[in-house]
C-alpha cells in the first residue's frame, strides 16, 4: 500500500503544507503527518499488522477502521488498548505491538 497524499494546493480542507511527524514502532521510525491516525501512518509505511492474537498468534491490523471493532489496538507510550485507527499522531509516540497470552483460569 502506498500513501497518496493530496497536494496542499489542492486540499480544500487544509490548504497548507502538512507538518511531518515520526512515530516509533518495533524499533523503527515511521514518518507521517500531524493528525494522521497511527493506523494511517503504519499502513502508509507498508506495515499491515501491529497486534498478535492470543489464541492463534495471528497478525491483526486495521479491520473496521472506525473505532468499533477494537481489532487494531496497540500500546501507545505505555497505555494499552489504544485504537490505532482513532489515535491521531502528534509525533514521538512509542507504539508497541499488543499481545496477551490467553489467561489460565485459576479454579478452586
Amino acid at each position, binding site marked *: 500500500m502506498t500513501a497518496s497524499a493530496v497536494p496542499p494546493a489542492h486540499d480544500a480542507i487544509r490548504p497548507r503544507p502538512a507538518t511531518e511527524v515520526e512515530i516509533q514502532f518495533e524499533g523503527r521510525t515511521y514518518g507521517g503527518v500531524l493528525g494522521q491516525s497511527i493506523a494511517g501512518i503504519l499502513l502508509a509505511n507498508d506495515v499491515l499488522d501491529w497486534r498478535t492474537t*492470543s489464541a492463534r498468534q495471528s497478525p491483526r491490523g486495521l479491520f473496521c477502521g472506525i473505532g468499533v471493532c*477494537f481489532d487494531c*489496538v496497540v500500546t501507545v507510550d505505555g497505555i*494499552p*488498548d489504544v485504537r490505532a485507527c482513532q489515535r491521531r499522531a502528534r509525533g514521538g509516540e512509542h507504539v508497541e505491538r499488543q499481545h*496477551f*497470552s*490467553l*489467561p*489460565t*483460569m*485459576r*479454579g*478452586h
Partner: protein
Amino acid sequence: MRIVVIGAGIVGAACAHVLTSAGFDVTVLERGAVAGGTSSSCEGNLLVSDKTPGPELDLAVLAATRWPQVAGELKDQLGDTFPSLEYEPKGGLVVAYTATAADALLTFAETQRQAGVEAQTMTPREALRLEPHLSPRIATGVYYPGDAQVQPTVAVEALLASARMAGARVRTRERVIGAMRDATGARIVGVRTDRGHYPADAVVNAAGPWAGEVATLLGAPVPVLPRFGMVLVTPRMPHRVFHKVYDADYVGATQSGDADLQTSAVVESTAAGTVLIGSSRQRVGFDDRLRARVISEIAAKAIALFPFLEHTMVMRTYGGFRPYMPDHLPVIGPDHRVSPLYHVTGHEGAGIGLSLVSADILLAQLSQTTAPLDPAPFALDRASLAPHLKEAA
C-alpha cells in the same frame, strides 16, 4: 410424543436437549435467531451465592451439579471442533465494604450454609489472597466454591446441536401467532406460525421475557415482565480477576421488586481475556436503549471493587431483558387453565444456570415420573402468583 418448544434461548435449548434425549419428538420455534434475546445479552452466571434459601436455591444447588455433567456430555458428543462452552467452576467471592453490610452478608451466608451451600467467610487478607487486585478497603468477604460460569450463546448452540443430532428440528425466523385447538376449542392441539401449522401433544412456552406475549397468544396470560440489565465489556487483558466477584448489594438487587434502577458491581473475566462488568436492573418495559447514567454508575461501583479498572477502557456495553416474575420464582410446569400447555420461564437473571434443571422438571412432568425436586413451588397456580395471574388475565 410431539412437543413444540417456543423460544430458542437457553431455556428452550435445554428443554429441547433434555426432551430429545428422553425420546420425545421436538420442534423448536424461534421468531428471531438462536440465542438472539436474553441468552446473548447476559453474563452466563451459574450462581448459588445470590440465592435466598428456599425453592430457587434448591434449584440452583441441583443446577450446580448438572452443568459439569452436561458440559462433559456435550463435549463428548459434539467433539473438539465445536466451540468450547467455557464452563468454569471458578467460584464466587462476595464482598461488603462497611460493618453494616458485612453483618448482613454474614447473616445471609449463614442461612445459606444451613441450606447446604458451601460459603467460606473471608477476612480482607484472605479475600485479597484469592483476588490480589481487589480493593483493600473491603470489610469482609464470603467465598462460594459452587459458583460457576458458562459462555451462554455457545451453551445454547451446543444444547441445540445435540438436540438436532437426536432428531429435533429448530425453526428460526418463524413467529408463533396462535394455538391450534380441538373441535371444542378447549384444548390446544398445536401451534400456528406465520409459516405453517405444528400439531403437538404438548406446547412449551420458553420465550423468556416475551413469554407473557406468547402465553397471551395461546390464550393463557402469564405475568412475566421484562427487567432491563446492562453489562460493560473491557478489551482483553492479562487476567486480574480470577473469580466471580461482586459486592453484596447484588443480592438485594436480585430480590427487589422495585421498578427503579438498581446497580451493583459484578465483575468477572472470560476465557477470552475480556472482563465483564455488571450489573443493573431496571423496569423500563421493552425499551432497550442503553443509558449513560446506568453505565457510569456500574463503572463507578466496579472501580470501587477493582481499582485497576479505572485505567481500563470499556470496549462495549450491551443490555438485555431478564424475564421477571412478580414473586421472584420461575414458572415451571403445566398451565392449569389451558391444556396441554407448559411454561418454563421467569428465571430473571438466573436462567442460564437454572435452565437444565428446569428442563429436567419439565421432562418429569411430561413423562409422569418423579421430578428431581418438588415442582410445587414453581407451579403457575401457586398462591403467591394468584393476584398477578388475575391481573394479567
